[in-house]
């Protein structure tokens, strides 16, 4: 009895402390980023000004004046929202079919979809650029970015939805069939209300992935469809490393998504554990 009590006391102190340490390690880069964004470029590289410095809003003011932050932000919102909507629009019926009317090949199809994530993006960089620029003429358009973001996220979205749908007893769907509901009615009136939590967290995660995507959004845009990722990238390359300015841009880019994530924490945890924890 005494041993048990001791153990729980140890556990009660040890685990929270460990959790805090890990959390702080993860949090530190963001803390540092936000801090740096209030320093001048000159102060930013001086170690002695790490914590103590003269804060300035210069970087943020520059940003909206010189770089048209809002246009990049709007592009990020447009592409992420439309890509998420489109991905779900395709993903929900697809996962529904695989969960409730599986064929012999369903498992293979799922594996195949996942395997597309294993292809290194760099391997198709040249054909993608060439085709979209010279052949299809859709380089640097919202359409292209939405399409690319959708296709990148479709496998993971289908996997997640499939896992959620699998948890719904097959009989409930069959009861719907007996009641004479159409396929769309089944999705709308039975499936989605039951898997609402799962679909919401999938959508959220998909949105975050779209927002954060950098490899393709940077390389397939110039100005028209450029997103916040491109803005960060643009501040890094041409004028050398201006840490203060770069930090401000980065903070402004990841800010919205962190706030969103903060508000939807519960949904996200559920989403990331793939419904394993309830």
């Amino acid at each position, binding site marked *: 009895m005494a041993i048990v009590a001791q153990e729980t006391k140890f556990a009660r102190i040890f685990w929270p402390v460990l959790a805090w340490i890990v959390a702080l390690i993860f949090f530190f880069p963001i803390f540092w980023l936000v801090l740096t964004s209030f320093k001048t470029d000159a102060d930013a590289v001086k170690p002695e000004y790490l914590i103590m410095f003269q804060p300035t809003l210069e970087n943020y003011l520059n940003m909206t004046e010189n770089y048209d932050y809002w246009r990049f932000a709007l592009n990020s919102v447009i592409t992420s929202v439309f890509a998420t909507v489109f991905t779900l629009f395709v993903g929900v019926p697809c996962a529904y079919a695989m969960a409730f009317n599986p064929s012999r090949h369903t498992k293979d199809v799922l594996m195949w979809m996942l395997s597309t994530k294993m292809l290194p993006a760099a391997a198709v960089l040249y054909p993608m650029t060439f085709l979209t620029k010279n052949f299809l003429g859709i380089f640097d358009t919202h359409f292209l970015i939405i399409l690319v973001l959708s296709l990148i996220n479709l496998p993971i979205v289908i996997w997640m939805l499939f896992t959620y749908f699998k948890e719904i007893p097959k009989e409930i769907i069959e009861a719907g069939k*007996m*009641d004479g509901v159409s396929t769309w009615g089944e999705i709308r009136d039975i499936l989605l209300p039951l898997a609402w939590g799962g679909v919401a967290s999938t959508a959220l995660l998909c949105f975050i992935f779209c927002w954060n995507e950098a490899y393709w959004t940077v390389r397939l845009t110039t100005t028209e469809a450029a997103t916040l990722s491109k803005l960060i990238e643009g501040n890094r390359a041409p004028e050398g490393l201006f840490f203060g300015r770069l930090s401000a841009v980065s903070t402004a880019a990841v800010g919205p998504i962190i706030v969103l994530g903060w508000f939807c924490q519960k949904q996200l945890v559920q989403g990331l554990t793939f419904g394993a924890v309830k």
Partner: protein
Amino acid sequence: MASLTLRDVAKAYGSTRVIESIDLDITDGEFVVFVGPSGCGKSTLLRMIAGLEEISGGDVSIGDTVVNEVAPAKRGVAMVFQTYALYPHMTVYNNMAFGLKQAKMPKDQIDKRVREAADILDIGPLLDRTPRALSGGQRQRVAIGRAIVREPEVFLFDEPLSNLDAALRVQTRLEIARLHERLGSTMIYVTHDQVEAMTLADKIVVLRGGDIEQVGSPMELYERPQNTFVAQFIGSPKMNFFNHSDLAQTAPPELRQVDEDTIIGIRSEHLSLCSAGEETLSATYELVEQLGEHALVHCTTSGGTEFIAKLDVPPQSGRDVPLYLRVSPDQVHLFNRETGLRK
């Protein structure tokens, strides 16, 4: 109301044949029970009738129409699932009304039907609750209610009582019997419990390994089982099987003359104690299960065959003293040992 016909119906998953060529006629208003051990294909057969499972061969007809390609909701059947399968996000009312809404029935008519069904099943006060807030028995009623409102020609039940406790099972069983009486619809009921089968059925279909072993009224199956499987499946405790060598010298002559290739089947309840010299069998007993009104006595013959006798009064003598048991010859069932078929 409708009759139902299965002609040469078969089901295969890939190369695994689950149902083999089944022929069955169900008349209008009949209460038919599919019974058989686990995995024999009862649910599969029921689901084929419902339209939830594709039919690999043969025809299913309801009334005069072959329904193989007809959608489940258009077959005029309603199904009560073992797990109830209520819509968790809808109230009891909407659970029952959902199918009628799909059929575009006017609101006032839906309301009338739902309230009628709720009256029959005594769930009126529960209409605004969600299934989460109901007990198992109440959920079961709602599931039945959802079937009733559609006024189907055929009701399908897949082990509807298996999730209820023993007392509730008996009560709900009676209610289903009453419901059949009241609605007069054709009902098909799947169970692996032979007591449910015996008490509910007009006609029992005994299935094994995807094949029909015997079809008949409960008493037909009890009195004239066509083979050893049905003989042991129907009735509790299950029928005792003896060899020629187990019989006493004093057994009735018509039994004495059966040969070695015959299985002699005698139900526990047909054995009774008698005095020495009149016995059909003699045995010693190891164990007595006293059930109040009668006792189940576990015995062994001198030939080593174990069996159970259902006696009104347990034997008073010691365990080493032989018990003398008799049976009237017309209550003996004879089966061919090789084929298992009734002689």
